């Protein structure tokens, strides 16, 4: 699991430009799947199994895009101005490093402010790529970059940029590899452009037209110093989502997930997230409606260049997913 996550996190694929991560995931899943297609927006749709008696078409979604920054202007002096793709928080930027899709690396810093206690806004930041003018600048308007930070193995815990949502991609990949038999038609969606508004999931859910949906994404925790109250903690197991700020999970699915986890003795916790949503929001409102839930990976410092997660929570998530999709779904 760690090796897979490390490999996936090392790839640069901001929202809208997911080809690199898509290729990597395709390689991992193809030997275990019946088919793998790419749709109009770049979503990777992987299918496994046929719908048997008592079976459903289950859509499992994990977004493969990460946050990015995009060049808006190269100044006369060669400093690079940028905007964000997805929610990039200014307080994580000073002295960060970035890696452009064309291989160029740079350092982020900001205009010298009169009031040094104030946090600069995105437009007050710039990237120094070592250029002194637009003519010798190796990047131009529209070029994209991602955070540049290597994977860190801390034992039970791991740290990297883009744990959101490469850990969930890894969970889906392993679930796909491990599920042996199922009466269900399983559709594993590695979606695009989630960070900018769950856009890939909206269109993929429409084409796939599932009977039931499960999104896998990271969620916040309440276990860091002076954290906002939240009952989810690292290491307490896979998180079953009840609601977040975008949607309410279908209570029948929440019950099914919880009962399955209890029966299989899989460590789990219940999640309510008060700031953020996932692909589940898009899946639930598709067409005539799709009963939808979500499995979440507890994660610290979300949207920073060094997110932290617990390897056992990830393993529990795989376990629960395999348990859920391997048998007939009985919702009550």
């Amino acid at each position, binding site marked *: 699991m760690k090796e897979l996550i490390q490999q996936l996190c090392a790839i640069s694929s901001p929202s809208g430009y997911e080809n690199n991560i898509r290729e990597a995931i395709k390689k991992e899943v193809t030997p275990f799947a019946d088919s793998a297609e790419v749709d109009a927006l770049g979503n990777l749709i992987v299918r496994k199994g046929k719908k048997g008696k008592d079976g459903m078409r289950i859509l499992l979604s994990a977004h493969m895009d990460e946050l990015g920054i995009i060049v808006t202007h190269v100044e006369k002096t060669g400093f690079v101005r940028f905007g964000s793709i997805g929610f990039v928080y200014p307080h994580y930027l000073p002295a960060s490093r970035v890696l452009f899709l064309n291989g160029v690396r740079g350092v982020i810093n900001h205009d010298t402010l009169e009031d040094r206690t104030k946090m600069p806004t995105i437009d007050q930041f710039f990237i120094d790529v070592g250029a002194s003018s637009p003519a010798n600048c190796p990047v131009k308007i529209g070029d994209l970059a991602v955070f540049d930070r290597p994977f860190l193995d801390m034992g039970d815990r791991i740290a990297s940029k883009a744990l959101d949502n490469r850990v969930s991609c890894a969970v889906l990949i392993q679930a796909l590899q491990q599920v042996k038999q199922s009466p269900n038609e399983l559709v594993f969606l590695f979606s695009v452009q989630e960070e900018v508004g769950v856009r890939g999931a909206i269109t993929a859910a429409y084409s796939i037209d599932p009977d039931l949906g499960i999104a896998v994404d990271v969620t916040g925790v309440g276990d860091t110093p002076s954290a906002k109250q939240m*009952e989810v903690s690292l290491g307490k197991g896979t998180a079953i989502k009840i609601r977040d700020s975008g949607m*309410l999970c279908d209570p029948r699915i929440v019950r099914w997930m919880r009962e399955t986890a209890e029966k299989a003795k899989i460590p789990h916790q219940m999640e309510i997230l008060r700031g953020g949503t996932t692909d589940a929001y898009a899946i639930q*409102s598709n067409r*005539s409606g*799709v009963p939808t839930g979500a499995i979440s990976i507890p994660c610290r410092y979300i949207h920073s260049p060094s997110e932290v997660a617990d390897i056992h929570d990830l393993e529990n998530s795989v376990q629960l997913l395999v348990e859920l999709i391997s048998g007939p779904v009985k919702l009550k």
Partner: protein
Amino acid sequence: MIELSAFLKELLSLPGLSGYEDPVRDVIADKWRPLVDELSLSKLGSLHGLRRAAAPGSHPSILLAAHMDAIGLMVTGIADGWIKVTQVGGLDMRILPGQMVTVLGQRDLPGILQMIPDRLKDKSKAGNPPKITDLFVDVGLAAREVTRSVKIGDLVSFAQLPLEMTGGTLAGHSLDNRASVAALTLCLEELRPFNLAWDVWAVATIQEEETLLGARTSSFDLHPDIAVAVDVTFAKGPGSNDHHTFPLGKGPTIGVGSNMHPALTTRFKKTADEMDLPYAMETMPKYSGTDAMAMQVTAEGIPCAVISIPLRYMHTPVEMVALKDIQRTARLLARFITQLEPDSMEIIFAESRV
């Protein structure tokens, strides 16, 4: 013969928060069963009641949507018996401290919703309205007992019982939008003796207060030719007196604006005039704030109308409505429907849009 006050009081005493509408849905289903030809549920739990047109074959259809979900709270954590909560739907923090609530745990528990006392907070925050994180529910039980009976995700609804007030008015929580559900029900009752030329879908939608999820998915499913959202609007009252507000007891409002098709606005107005029904035109330039926002832009687009019942103190546990406005709304909807003919689509939309 449905007794409006009794039916409404029954609806208002049931929970049915956004996403968890089953309790109130079951009661609505019981009332609709004798009034429709077919009763069914959407994939997500909205209630669909079909009253078929009389003649065999296919017919144009009209969908009437009234959301059945209510706002409230959800348990996010329990610490030493103190229950922390978050919102379901939009709540005004300023009206919450001191409310009696019911925690829907293993069993229904009465509780007091209160805020952390000023003396335990930063002095500079004294006198300020609470944030959601300052609120908690005290159910008065030992911590062990609370942990046994209540879990994360349990719902908390207002405990305020409905009050019959003078002048034919009723106060309580969830009149937004159970008043409209009642209007829809009375409309179905009024339609009973008629042979209809159009199919009528009465839909009690889920989750309007959160994401308009029911309206979005049910209108996709049923793809009607016309959709009407029945909801509540602001009634004139203390502190609310401008052009956004309408008198209590002087009839429903008919919406004018971008979310409503002008031909339907005109036709509803004409119908109300013919009936000598008191009503008001309500300008809603940008948003109607109703299920119609979702229905208008579903699939290839659905022409919409919005009919609203004036309501005081919206989104508080003491919302107030005039019973005769509910009855008038029902009659307006019924008359509109009985006047629909097989060729009404061509006639209604003839002048506009081409």
